[in-house]
């Protein structure tokens, strides 16, 4: 363990804003991606069933 106290851990030697700003945005980005994927999977059920007109010519 590198840290003498929890405060030191949070402060990151004075670089807390940069370090936690990096890790937090990273975690947030993954969370948003996972949520968006969940929404997309749920939306599949609501899609109208494809009919002949909806099919692209190259399908």
């Amino acid at each position, binding site marked *: 363990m590198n840290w003498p106290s929890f405060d030191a851990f949070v402060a990151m030697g004075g*670089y807390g804003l*940069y370090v936690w700003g990096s890790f937090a945005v990273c975690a947030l980005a993954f969370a948003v*991606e996972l949520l968006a*994927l969940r929404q997309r999977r749920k939306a*599949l059920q609501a899609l109208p069933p494809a009919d002949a007109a909806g099919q*692209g010519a190259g399908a």
Partner: protein
Amino acid sequence: MNWFKYAAPQRFHPLAGRAVPWFGVAAVLLAVAGLAIALLVAPTDFQQGDAYRIIFIHVPAAWMSMVLYMAMAFWAAMGLVFNARLASMLALALAPTGALMTFLALWTGALWGKPTWGTWWVWDARLTSELILLFLYIGFMSLHAAIDDERRADRAAAVLALVGAVNVPIIYFSVQWWNTLHQGSSVKLGGSSMAAIMLVGMLLMTLAFWMYSFAVVLARARCIILERERHAAWAQGALA
């Protein structure tokens, strides 16, 4: 085992569905171990203080941004050359995660640059070519979304992906070819300029990012398959 049979979306869909949870669990376990080393165990750097800890997500994100682009260009090319629908769907599934990794590489890089270089951004070759990579991902997705016919969209976007692939070696070698503020690579086969524990933490985080990407891309590919193939009887069964 005949892998080509999984080129059929109908066969690939359940296979990917079985793989996603395993990649997800692996990503979580690797991330827990990697974060423990990155934030708790690894010692403070004698030059950069604790700001260097950004490396544990910056480098994995930057590596993945390039790896995912090459994978996207590869599958886009497969879709273009062999007229393989599943390959094109995989390319499309890779793009958002690749763009996300590119954004994270740029974001964490800015937050690392400020305390170590004194600036959030500089137009040097490494940073600029990585920004171009983000635009290539966005361009790929926008172009695909702009064309109604799916297979035409696949082909047009594939051409863009292939032309843009030239940017990846430019990113990788930019620190050697040009004088950049960005440092050269610290990790080399047969002798890295990093303490062993830092290297282990970074490799664990890289594997975690890799497993996460597998899980998310396969899950997204499953969505794309059902969105496109829902006219088929098997897809109706999978949706029910």
